């Protein structure tokens, strides 16, 4: 079974702190994604990576950065956390046509910024 793990289920940070969210997958997937999930808005793509050291902006990259130094690990960084970044963050991994583009999700990190 594919396993995607995220470093924390719940996180509370103060405004202005630098926040690191870690995601690890064990299936050698090329693609990894960071989403933000808010009620009534569904999931919105923050960043994705299709290879080591490669990254592409999604729909809402402002205030975030990412790092992918190893294939299995994709980190989301909030450079200076703000209260409007309070949300559920979901990481996913996936491949292409051979698995019909299915994405596999981690359990999520619920981040609260106070």
């Amino acid at each position, binding site marked *: 079974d594919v396993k995607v793990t995220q470093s924390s289920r719940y996180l509370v940070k103060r405004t202005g702190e630098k926040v690191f969210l870690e995601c690890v997958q064990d299936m050698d997937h090329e693609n990894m994604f960071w989403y933000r999930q808010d009620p009534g808005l*569904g999931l919105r793509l923050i960043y994705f990576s299709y290879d080591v050291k490669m990254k592409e902006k999604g729909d809402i990259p402002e205030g975030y950065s990412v790092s992918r130094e190893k294939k299995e690990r994709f980190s989301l960084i909030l450079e200076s956390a703000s209260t409007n970044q309070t949300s559920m963050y979901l990481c996913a991994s996936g491949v292409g046509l051979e698995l019909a583009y299915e994405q596999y999700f981690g359990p999520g990190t619920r981040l609260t910024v106070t």
Partner: protein
Amino acid sequence: AQTVTQSQPEMSVQEAETVTLSCTYDTSENNYYLFWYKQPPSRQMILVIRQEAYKQQNATENRFSVNFQKAAKSFSLKISDSQLGDTAMYFCAFMKESNYQLIWGAGTKLIIKP
């Protein structure tokens, strides 16, 4: 830009009943993929069913089936013989061919009552 609309924020049905969740999308693309994902309470998002736009036959997975109407840009999910374990948020998602990026609907909260 592509958009995905789920018009039912919440639905509830009795166990063993059949329920249909609606999804419409807007795109000018001819080749694309559509997905239904399920997010049970406090559990990970998982894929329920997928449909390739070039396939006319509707996808089915056990009790789950879709009604794909390409001309109408409609992609509804039917759950037959609903079970308590079907209680979850259901998200409809769209992906352009070979793009890897999903566009998500806002979700429908489905409650199965005993």
